[in-house]
């Protein structure tokens, strides 16, 4: 069930009505939301409901066992077993085919061809997200950031809550579980935030992402050898905007829907293309994943506590694993590795620059301000192009396609086929909103929350109608569903 469909609209109306009607009985309300979440997931493929439950049960039991164990070694062992179990399930469904294909190629290259046990493994939608949420629960309980839940219902709802189940944001146990212990609350602020995020998410996904995909990005990536350099350049800018609007659009709707049901998720995107460095970019892009990787991988690996060399290694490893989390393909590995390597280079360069010219050696003056401003602008342009370069490998189905794409940048004399004013307009529109004040959404939400109900209804209905009317026919799946 995709968010921008009539099915989901009807589903949400029922869930909203029933869940608030039973708010006086909090446990019943959780059952309603859990039932709705399992129904939502079963709509994709009911066969994986058992897997979702199994993954939840492992984490629930591990949480209880950790809470009842005082010996540090045993607690660590339980965390290790739960994390290994979660990652094994993820590994089997997501990487089994990739591993065997890579092994077969390796053996073939070495002249040692073997019959390997290939099989068709269907990837359960959202498995990367609910596995990471399960790990977050067990580790948070181990670290004392979350209390072990006695109620299986709470853990099931935390892991399967439908707005975030299939494509995030990755919600932390320490953020969400306490909300299940309070009486559900819906305020004007929830309504303002919910309506603004749902409308902005729908507009991003249905209009900007879908048009850019069908009219520019898909044809350009289908055969990069058949188009001009200008098509390729605007095509990758288009993909940068498409993936942002697609994924942040999904996150916006998820956060908005959760807000209307009385729950708060953390923000997942913060105008990422205004970042002036890669480090800044990763503080703004898919925030729930980057902070997850920081807290559950980079920090346990040692972070920046054990000298420069180990810091670079940890950065590199974290981004490498972040890359492979996105998909079982070498192009994703390259994408993650590239980001990891460039983050390490950036850190080294900044350190050397600070040694050469400490930032506070020159008291503020006009020239310093101009210099800092120029440096900031150059940083934004440079970072955006680095990110775009990496997106080529993320979007391409193989290294050969990515190679053709890069080679194509030499064909400047050929006329462009896909760079239309409409596509360029959509890219510019999306980029414009990267540089608007951060509080724009907040101001809009504050304005909307005071509207009388019928006017609010007209705004919501009119907004959805306009988006639906402008958008191309049909609904393309969200890019991050494949992860």
């Amino acid at each position: 069930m995709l968010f921008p469909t009539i099915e989901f609209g009807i589903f949400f109306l029922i869930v909203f009505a029933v869940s608030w009607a039973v708010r006086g009985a909090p446990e019943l309300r959780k059952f309603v939301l859990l039932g709705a979440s399992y129904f939502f997931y079963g709509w994709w493929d009911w066969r994986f409901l058992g897997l979702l439950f199994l993954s939840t049960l492992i984490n629930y039991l591990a949480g209880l066992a950790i809470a009842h164990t005082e010996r540090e070694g045993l607690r660590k062992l339980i965390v290790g077993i739960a994390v290994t179990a979660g990652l094994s399930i993820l590994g089997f469904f997501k990487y089994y085919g990739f591993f065997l294909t890579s092994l077969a190629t390796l053996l073939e290259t070495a002249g040692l061809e073997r019959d390997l046990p290939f099989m068709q493994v269907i990837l359960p939608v959202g498995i990367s997200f609910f596995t990471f949420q399960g790990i977050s629960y067990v580790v948070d309980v181990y670290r004392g950031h979350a209390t072990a839940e006695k109620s299986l219902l709470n853990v099931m709802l935390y892991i399967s809550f439908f707005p975030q189940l299939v494509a995030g944001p990755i919600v932390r146990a320490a953020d969400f579980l306490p909300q299940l212990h309070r009486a559900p609350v819906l305020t004007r602020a929830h309504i303002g935030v919910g309506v603004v995020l749902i409308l902005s998410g729908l507009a991003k996904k249905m209009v900007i992402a879908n048009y850019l995909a069908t009219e520019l990005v898909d044809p350009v990536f289908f055969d990069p050898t058949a188009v001009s350099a200008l098509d390729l350049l605007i095509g990758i800018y288009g993909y940068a905007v498409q993936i942002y609007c697609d994924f942040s659009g999904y996150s916006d709707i998820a956060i908005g829907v959760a807000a209307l049901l009385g729950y708060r998720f953390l923000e997942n995107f913060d105008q990422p293309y205004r970042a002036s460095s890669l480090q800044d970019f990763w503080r703004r892009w898919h925030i729930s994943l980057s902070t997850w990787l920081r807290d559950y991988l980079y920090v346990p690996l040692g972070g920046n506590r054990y000298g420069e060399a180990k810091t670079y290694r940890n950065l590199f490893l974290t981004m490498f694993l972040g890359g492979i989390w996105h998909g079982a393909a070498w192009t994703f590995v390259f994408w993650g590795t590239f980001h990891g390597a460039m983050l390490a280079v950036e850190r080294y360069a900044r350190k050397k620059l600070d040694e050469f010219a400490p930032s506070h050696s020159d008291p503020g003056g006009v020239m310093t301000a101009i210099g800092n401003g120029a440096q900031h602008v150059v940083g934004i342009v440079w970072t955006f192009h680095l990110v775009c370069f990496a997106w080529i490998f993320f979007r391409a189905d193989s290294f050969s396609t990515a190679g053709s794409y890069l080679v194509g940048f030499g064909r400047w004399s050929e006329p462009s086929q896909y760079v239309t004013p409409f596509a360029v307009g959509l890219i510019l529109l999306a980029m414009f909103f990267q540089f608007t004040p951060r509080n724009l959404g907040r101001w809009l939400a504050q304005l909307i929350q005071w509207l009388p109900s019928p006017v609010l209804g007209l705004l919501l209905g009119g907004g959805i109608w306009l988006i639906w009317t402008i958008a191309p026919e049909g609904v393309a799946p969200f890019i991050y569903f494949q992860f």
Partner: protein
Amino acid sequence: MLDLLHHEREGDEYGEEVESLHEAETRRSVMRMSIALVVASVLLLAFNSQSLVTWVNGFEVGPVQDAVVSLAARWNGEMEEQGLDAPAKTVRGEVNEARNMDWSEVQRWLENEQARSREGARLLRGMLSEERG
């Protein structure tokens, strides 16, 4: 934007009085949002009835489904008779025009806009000088 929600929860420690305020606020907000959702649904049913037909046409064949399909088609026919599909047709027409625009048309449009603004400025100057005269 989500700090709006964060601030809402800060009163949690203040006890029963705040809880009862939250309950009253929740009751009002649920009513507000319910009315808004009903208005939005009616508006979409009236102005977007074609999507309803497209959606139900995807149903499997069966007596109930057939009844729903025929009901949706009748509803859409009624809405079209009332002219409620006209705004969607106009907007789609405009969007298609924008999609099919090429760079020479954009250039022509920009030139026309510049000419119009020059003409506007000329007229304004003319009016001002007449007033002064």
